């Protein structure tokens, strides 16, 4: 069981109704954590181009969840 801080941005923040939350999770990797959060907060999980970052570094959904991490979920970007 890991305890992580999860932060939501843009569309995800609005869908979740919160900017960030502490989560106790058994998720094996960041992808599984995203699905967990998606189910709990009704996030649109079908979007193409969702990205994840950990402790202010871009990460992969295959990366493991480490206790104490700050995990950021980014909906598809649209700058410009």
């Amino acid at each position, binding site marked *: 069981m890991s305890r992580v801080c999860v932060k939501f941005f843009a569309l995800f923040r609005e869908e979740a109704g919160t900017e960030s939350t502490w989560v106790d999770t058994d998720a094996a990797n960041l992808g599984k954590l995203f699905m967990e959060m998606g189910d709990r907060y009704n996030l649109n999980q079908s979007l193409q181009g969702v990205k994840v970052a950990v402790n*202010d570094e871009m990460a992969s959904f295959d990366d493991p969840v480490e206790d104490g991490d700050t995990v950021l979920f980014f909906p598809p970007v*649209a*700058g*410009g």
Partner: protein
Amino acid sequence: MNFSISTQPLDSGRLREALLRHDAGAFVAFEGWVRNVNDGRSVTRLVYEAYEPLAVKEGSKVLEEARSRFGLLDVACVHRIGALELGDMAVWVGVVSGHRDAAFPACRYVIDEVKARVPIWKKEHYTDGVTGWVHCPAEQSSAEGAG
């Protein structure tokens, strides 16, 4: 070489001035402006938000890639965030090189990569009161909102 996020209106004159130099022959700039229409819907304003720590990191990476790939003398990019009105400049890219053969594709590279990789999001407000987040891959034409 500088990538930054600004909450203030962008001043292309000042941004350009910072790039002036005597060993450069070509300067190419791109500006993305807020359009009054996107995907056939009337837009009244846009709100941009960024996750600044990673936006600056990833944006700076894009500029360094452009510099080394195209042999640029200098390159800079600023993205504005917050509430923008019609006609406002959302993003500015400036590229300086010896010759134009490098400057054009380099400028295009920077704006393409910034749009695709830098954590910045755009929410459109339409004349009918509805709002919507613009999502590039799912709604391809929306991705072109401001340029």
